[in-house]
């Protein structure tokens, strides 16, 4: 069909004037370039009337104006004939003329004036063509555009519905498409708000920008924006249109960058996209200055680059790029169709020539492709949203797992800590128990001490009588025995009885004295510390005491050649203690040490001499434990007393190589009245007194280390203060 028209035009062009034939078809359009005859109209001096009156005075020439000539006003003219069978609406439009007036004069000289142009506020571009009539069409125009010359002077004519019908139809479709896109813009905005993924924001901006672009684009009729918001001003919609045409693709480029992460994955292409975005801005400025009229090539470029990036990334295994590619294909298709529209190529030739088909053939197809792209992409983004959600959930799960692992390890740690703490607690509990036991023990000792003191004092009263009366009895009986005045025979008879009673009195007296010594020992225990503390030289005290004890011991057991050693630490400072107390403690321990030596010697002898001397120590429980012991042949009894400093304390050690302390009685040695010595030899108060003095008086410690049969060592620790 088009070719036919071209042929017609071609043949017709040989004639005096080109005639545009409007064919008998539902859909038709033509773009007039060469067909137009041009006449320069400097300063708009030539009116239509003068043109009509003096056709010879104003000769029109072919449309071959040069670039430089296109700076003033012109007249263009052509003839138009419809061979259609119906009266049809024909729409005139030009993409480049800013303002143009079209005068259509029919054969009856009836004049119709139309107004078209991109900067024409009140467009009137439709004319009802009656078949068979020839119309002379005159066009008065001017253009500031400096794009390609032939392109500059063109006029599009096409069959359309009447403005009202067509507008209703396009509005209907535009409304649907724009509504869908606006909804999608909001949808993506929602996704952005919901998961804070920046690509959704850019896509939302992009979609919104498309919507604004569409409402501001005017094709054959005024744009929706102009119609609704600026009916009297074409410049603002013009500005908005181009602003958003360019901004849409900037937003698109930015979205592609974010969505495909080109910055990291394809840095070179990323820079190229940024550059193209810059070109878009430049294009916008150029359009505003009238230097260029279209930036569609830049858009093509940016879409192509992004599509290319998508393909590369998809090949690299970036799965979400797949959606991007498919969605972009819609855009490319839309741009292709629009390009075809501008280039008079019908890529949609397979579609019927009905309203929808025509709608899709116009740049409105971009609306549709854009909407389809948006729908598709929104689904793609939705799937990305899902995958992101999944990712988030996976991350969450991962975190949960990490948390659990952490929790587990912390639990283990905690358990270990609890275990350690429990051990510590058990330990400290043990210590506490021990301390408690000691406390109870010392408390017992203390109360025992008080009791002892009370008892001791009170015992002394009756003891007084026992001792003294037994003594008096003895004296009285002795007197009777001596009394010469008595009957001799009687005296002889009772003498044995008197002797018996005297003997008994002596025994009573002895035991009374024994009680006395026990009581005195007990009283020493409970003696209130009235003695004053004085600075005491520990070493010299030790020396004095061991000397004293040694000589006393030697006097008692002359046969045993016992030795002693003194190992003092000369660095020991004098400390403030009750010296008599220390003396008493040392004396008790040292006496025991010598006694142990003697005992060991005795055991050794007993061992050798069998039963001979056993009777002497039958009362000693030690004997039982010592029978099995193997003793060195030559036993040299020795007592070593040594002093030294330890942190916070002064330590006195009294070591003897005597018989040692049997294990079962080791705990009892500090108890009052506990003794292993035969009755009469010890009161069992020596060590308990020493213990009391050291722990309560000095605030120190008295410990014993012992290897039964080999040695005993008493360790006396006195605080330095």
């Amino acid at each position, binding site marked *: 069909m088009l070719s036919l028209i071209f042929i017609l035009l071609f043949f017709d062009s040989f004639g005096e004037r080109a005639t545009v034939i409007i064919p008998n078809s539902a859909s038709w359009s033509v773009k007039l370039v060469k067909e137009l005859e041009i006449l320069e109209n400097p300063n708009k001096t030539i009116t239509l009337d003068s043109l009509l009156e003096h056709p010879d005075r104003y000769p029109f020439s072919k449309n071959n104006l040069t670039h430089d000539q296109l700076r003033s006003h012109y007249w263009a003219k052509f003839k138009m004939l419809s061979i259609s069978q119906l009266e049809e609406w024909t729409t005139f439009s030009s993409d480049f003329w800013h303002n143009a007036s079209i005068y259509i004069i029919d054969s009856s000289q009836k004049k119709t004036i139309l107004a078209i142009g991109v900067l024409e506020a009140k467009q009137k571009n439709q004319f009802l063509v009656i078949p068979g009539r020839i119309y002379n069409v005159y066009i008065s125009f001017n253009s500031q555009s400096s794009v390609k010359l032939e392109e500059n002077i063109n006029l599009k004519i096409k069959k359309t519905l009447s403005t009202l019908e067509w507008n209703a139809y396009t509005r209907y479709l535009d409304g649907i498409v724009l509504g869908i896109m606006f909804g999608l813009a909001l949808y993506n905005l929602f996704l952005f708000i919901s998961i804070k993924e920046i690509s959704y924001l850019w896509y939302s901006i992009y979609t919104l920008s498309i919507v604004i672009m569409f409402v501001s684009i005017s094709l054959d009729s005024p744009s929706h924006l102009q119609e609704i918001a600026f009916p009297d001003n074409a410049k603002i919609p013009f500005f908005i249109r181009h602003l958003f045409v360019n901004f849409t693709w900037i937003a698109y480029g930015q979205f592609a960058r974010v969505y495909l992460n080109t910055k990291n994955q394809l840095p070179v292409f990323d820079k190229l996209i940024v550059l193209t975005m810059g070109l878009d801005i430049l294009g916008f400025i150029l359009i505003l200055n009238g230097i260029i009229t279209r930036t569609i090539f830049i858009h093509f470029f940016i879409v192509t680059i992004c599509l290319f990036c998508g393909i590369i990334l998809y090949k690299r295994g970036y799965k979400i790029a797949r959606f991007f590619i498919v969605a972009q294909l819609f855009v490319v298709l839309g741009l292709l169709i629009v390009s075809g529209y501008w280039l008079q190529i019908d890529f949609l030739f397979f579609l019927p020539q009905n309203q929808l088909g025509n709608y899709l053939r116009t740049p409105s197809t971009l609306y549709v492709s854009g909407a389809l792209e948006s729908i598709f992409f929104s689904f793609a983004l939705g799937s990305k949203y899902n995958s992101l959600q999944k990712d988030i959930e996976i991350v969450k799960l991962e975190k949960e797992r990490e948390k659990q692992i952490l929790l587990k390890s912390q639990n283990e740690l905690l358990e270990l800590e609890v275990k350690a703490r429990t051990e510590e607690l058990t330990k400290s509990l043990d210590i506490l128990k021990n301390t408690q036991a000691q406390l109870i023990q010392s408390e017992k000792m203390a109360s025992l001490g008080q009791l002892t003191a009370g008892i001791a*004092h009170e015992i002394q009263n009756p003891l*007084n009588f*026992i001792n003294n009366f037994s003594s*008096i009895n003895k004296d009285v009986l002795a007197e009777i025995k001596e009394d010469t005045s008595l009957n001799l025979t009687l005296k002889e008879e009772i003498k044995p009885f008197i002797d018996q009673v005297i003997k008994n009195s002596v025994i009573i007296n002895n035991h*009374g004295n024994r009680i006395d010594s026990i009581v005195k020992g007990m009283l020493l225990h409970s003696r209130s510390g*009235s003695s004053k503390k004085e600075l005491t030289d520990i070493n010299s005290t030790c020396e004095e005491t061991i000397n004293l004890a040694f000589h006393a011991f030697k006097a008692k057991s002359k046969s045993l050649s016992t030795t002693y050693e003194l190992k003092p630490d000369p660095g020991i400072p004098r400390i403030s203690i009750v010296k008599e107390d220390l003396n008493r403690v040392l004396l008790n321990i040292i006496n025991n040490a010598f006694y142990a030596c003697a005992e060991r010697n005795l055991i050794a002898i007993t061992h050798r001499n069998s039963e001979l001397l056993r009777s002497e120590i039958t009362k000693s429980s030690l004997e039982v434990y010592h029978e099995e012991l193997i003793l060195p042949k030559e036993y040299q009894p020795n007592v070593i007393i040594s002093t030294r400093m330890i942190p916070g304390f002064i330590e006195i050690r009294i070591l003897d190589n005597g018989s040692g302390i049997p294990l079962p009685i080791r705990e009892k040695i500090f108890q009052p009245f506990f003794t292993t010595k035969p009755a009469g030899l010890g009161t069992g108060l020596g060590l308990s007194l020493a213990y009391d003095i050291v722990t309560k008086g000095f605030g120190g410690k008295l410990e014993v280390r012992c290897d039964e049969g080999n040695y005993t060592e008493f360790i006396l620790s006195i605080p330095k203060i």
Partner: protein
Amino acid sequence: MKRKILVVDDEKDYESLINQALGVKKYFREYKFIYSLTGNSAISMLKDYDDIDIAMLDINMPDMDGLSLLKYIKSNYPNIQVIMVSAYNDNANILLAMNAGAIDFVAKPIDIKNLENTLKKTINHSENIKLNIPYDQESPL
């Protein structure tokens, strides 16, 4: 009339002991031991008799303790020499007694020999005071 030695002790057998142990001795023929079981009765006895030279006091007694009695005697009858006889023979008590004016302190159980010597010394001292002989010129026993 025999001079008197006042013995204050809550033990009943004390009288018997002192009589048997000391009363029979020649040295004490000039003296009569009089006994009181409580501090209060001792005070009334001090009022009844004006010829008490020496008092032997126990410390631990039911109604009035020996130290209070000692103080009472020393403030009312300064010429009576007091010997404390007690089982509570710790330093603190001895110190208290001596500071309150006791001439000596004898520990229980009583060593009869020791008590005898103490009594002799005290009697001597008491006699010397009566004769106004200064303490440092007293003849030793």
